[in-house]
């Protein structure tokens, strides 16, 4: 800006430098390293890896499978998410707060836990089906080990995502538009079909693109459901190749991760395009439409929503719990056979799972604290900064999270396979490489709500401190931080919850002694120890749920839109 002054600019430059450093280290560097591996392996231009990948039929099949389950999962998530968003947003249904909490919960549960829970529900060893005597005979394959099963679970996992985006969009829908249609004599279904749905189309398409990206990048669900049926998608193919070949195949799998990256980028651009295309005539601030009175249909609809929650949340959790309480595979769950041995085993006896608790908790806490303290200055620069280039640069904070986790994991492997230059420290095969990947991946989860909070705070609060004589760092610590802290901390808790049961990144980066909870659950299930996997998952779900409820207690102090599960 061509501004020079005897003093006061030093702190601003320090802040800018810090934000730029964070963005470069955690966002640009991994992505650039990955691209370099594809086109400039070893420093020379070469498309050998690309050619090799393109000539491999297994790669093509996995790509096709990724697209198929991605589209199928997205379709199901759209139907479910839009339906529930319309019901919650447009009708006078009761208990919306609890309904939203329950409906959004699957999003907070790690995908591999969802997969595990559903497997317990449907398999021949299902304790629940045994209870009713309708379990398939032992030895028959679980019906979820299929493309259909993957799509169904992806749909359930990500329908809350669609719900949240559409719900937010509907809040911005001015009531006048709906009231004008009502005044013209349109009934509720006509209003929904001819007014709300067309106005919501850009939002819904954006939500679909976002969901598609998440489905394509998902590792946990196709890992649990696809690998046993040998139905591979790109993330699971990468995992298998890397597990089999080690660092030697890194260049090949780097190309695979770029394919996922490209598919995901297409989705991201589509979403961005549609969010820009939002009809600006409907951006006027106004109250949301008056809900439709359901009359005698209210109770039936409420009951069917409860049934929906039961199917997508309660039943699988029950399946998980019951498996975690049985003594062994196929054993009936009765008052005599019920046992807490599995919990005792994972909590006190099994060394790796005890290490995993320690690792995952320390990693999550470290990442969450880092995320909170970085989100405040990064959010400041993004939300209130004047320089345009830095805003542009900040967009790349989103990249490591928007892109599938395997992409970042591969990039981190490439970055840290060799010891760090100058320092000579080896991160590969330690817990620190996981920490790096988590920092890069989850930072945006705290930046987003913090930027949101900045947008809701009047800038004059900071300006008042400025004229009172406070310099930048004083203002940040005494005025800005207290004001955005609730949102940043809520973001940090989101980071903690997401990182605690994370699998995608750690599945590729873990090493002996550096296991995470996700990895241990995965290993138990792969080794056929569903009861231990279930017990561990049940503990993780319980922690997640308690944290959600705990954060709800101070939800009133948060700016709106910070907690996804609060309506």
């Amino acid at each position, binding site marked *: *800006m*061509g*501004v*020079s*002054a*005897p*003093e*006061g*600019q030093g702190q601003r430059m320090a802040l800018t430098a810090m934000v730029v450093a964070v963005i470069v280290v955690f966002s640009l560097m991994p992505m650039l390293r990955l691209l370099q591996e594809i086109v400039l392996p070893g420093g020379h231009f070469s498309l050998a890896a690309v050619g090799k990948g393109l000539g491999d039929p297994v790669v093509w099949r996995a790509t096709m499978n990724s697209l198929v389950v991605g589209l199928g999962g997205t379709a199901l998530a759209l139907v479910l998410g839009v339906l529930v968003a319309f019901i919650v947003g447009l009708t006078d249904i009761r208990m919306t707060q609890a309904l939203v909490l329950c409906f959004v919960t699957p999003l907070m549960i790690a995908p591999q836990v969802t997969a595990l829970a559903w497997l317990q529900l449907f398999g021949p060893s299902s304790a629940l089906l045994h209870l009713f005597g309708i379990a398939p005979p032992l030895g028959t394959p679980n019906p979820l080990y299929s493309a259909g099963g993957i799509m169904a679970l992806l749909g359930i996992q990500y329908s809350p995502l669609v719900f949240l985006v559409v719900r937010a969009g509907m809040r911005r829908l001015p009531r006048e538009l709906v009231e004008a249609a009502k005044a013209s004599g349109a009934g509720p279904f006509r209003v929904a079909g001819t007014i709300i749905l067309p106005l919501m189309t850009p939002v819904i398409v954006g939500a679909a693109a976002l969901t598609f990206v998440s489905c394509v990048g998902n590792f946990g669900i196709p890992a649990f459901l696809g690998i046993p049926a040998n139905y591979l998608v790109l993330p699971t193919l990468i995992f298998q190749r890397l597990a089999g070949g080690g660092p030697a195949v890194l260049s090949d799998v780097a190309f695979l991760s770029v394919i996922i990256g490209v598919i995901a980028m297409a989705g991201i651009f589509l979403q961005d395009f549609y969010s820009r295309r939002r009809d600006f005539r409907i951006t006027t601030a106004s109250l949301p439409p008056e809900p439709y009175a359901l009359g005698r249909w209210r109770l039936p609809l409420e009951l069917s929503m409860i049934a929906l929650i039961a199917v997508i949340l309660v039943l699988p959790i029950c399946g998980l719990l019951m498996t975690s309480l049985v003594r062994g595979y196929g054993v009936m769950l009765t008052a005599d056979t019920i046992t807490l041995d599995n919990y005792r085993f994972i909590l006190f006896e099994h060394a790796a799972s005890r290490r995993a608790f320690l690792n995952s908790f320390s990693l999550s806490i470290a990442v969450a604290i880092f995320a909170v303290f970085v989100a405040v200055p990064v959010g400041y620069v993004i939300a209130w900064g004047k320089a345009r280039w830095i805003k542009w640069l900040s967009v790349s904070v989103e990249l490591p999270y928007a892109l599938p986790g395997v992409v970042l994991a591969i990039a981190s492997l490439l970055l840290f396979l060799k010891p760090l230059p100058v320092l000579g420290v080896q991160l590969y095969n330690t817990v620190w490489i996981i920490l790096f990947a988590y920092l890069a991946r989850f930072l945006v989860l705290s930046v987003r709500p913090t930027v949101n909070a900045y947008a809701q705070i*009047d800038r*004059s*609060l900071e*300006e*008042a*401190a*400025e*004229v*009172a*004589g*406070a*310099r930048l760092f*004083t203002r940040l610590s*005494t*005025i800005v931080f*207290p*004001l955005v802290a609730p949102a940043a901390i809520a973001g940090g808790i989101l980071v903690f919850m997401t990182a605690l049961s994370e699998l995608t990144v750690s599945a590729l980066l873990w090493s002996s002694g550096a296991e995470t909870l996700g990895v241990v659950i995965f290993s138990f299930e792969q080794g056929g120890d569903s009861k231990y996997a279930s017990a561990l998952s049940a503990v993780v779900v319980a922690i997640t749920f308690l944290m959600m409820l705990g954060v709800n207690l101070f939800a009133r102090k948060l700016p709106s839109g910070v907690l996804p599960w609060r309506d």
Partner: protein
Amino acid sequence: MTIRGLTKTFGAVDALKDVSLEVKPGEFLAVLGPSGCGKTTLLRMIAGFETVSFGEIEIEGEVVSRPGYEVPPNRRRIGIVFQNYALWPHMSVAENIGYSLKVAKIAAGERKRRIEEALSVVSLSGMGDRSPGSLSGGQRQRVALARCLVAEPALVLFDEPLANLDVHLRASMEDEFAAFHKRTGTTVVYITHDQTEAMALADRIAVMDHGRIMQLAAPQTIYHEPANEMVARFISHGMVIPVTMRTSERNGTCEADILGQPITLRCRTGEAPRSGAVVCCRAEDVRPAKDNEPGFDGTIKRVVYQGGVARIDFAPAAAPDLNIHFVQPDPQPFAAGDSARLCFTGGWLIPENTQTGHSA
């Protein structure tokens, strides 16, 4: 404070063009203009939130802004009363007020004393422990005043401080501001779009439009001797009417014909007959003509009752597009569509072609 040739461009748009003004120590200057006239930009540049494109700003003899050189807002010794108060919600009233002292590392005892003092000046003694959220609108405004007062700034900027208040509170806050200024003797620059506020409070008013200062003068001068058509129309809906000048200025007046009626107009020294002359008339310069008195005919267009008086819009037959309006006390005889004969009793000859005018 002195401002010389201040210009601010946003891209291709000039938000502020060649603004010069001087505020004397202890003076209360109001900057008045319609929305988008650049007054907020001017305030933000004085405070140091915006950089200057050309020109310079000087506070207490020290240049604080010129192109490429900006003293940051925290080193300017200014105070701002924001439109929305900008009280920090996470601090008590006393902490809000004492913030600048704490930043300046003033010892706790001294700080406490000055906070108490500031609280008593705005008659909020004993309220220091309250949180800003528990205060009424007027009390918050007073805390904002105390907060900028406590730092003993060289200059206090008010950014439309009454725009968010209801009419009754506004009147009492006006009194409060006037008392505050009288008591402290601080130099004040007061941004507003409300001319009654500006008239009531200011020693001088700077009328702004399209990024320029149209006139900088005492409220009475602004009202009675507008420097140009914009000021004439903007202040109290002044009427701007073409006249034919007949004589040159003598003793501050000249003779002219207005809508065919001969009249004596007030004017600047040295005015001489010229074409295109226009006059500014206020509603009180118009009244119904008595029998045989010179005047002009026309039609009553509209009668708007305003409680105790009625405002009457009138179209003269000679120039039906002109809107002449005047005020009649109850009971008044006119109704829309009536024919009537009016006369002017005076007016101010608007000086020729001056875009900006400075008169003390």
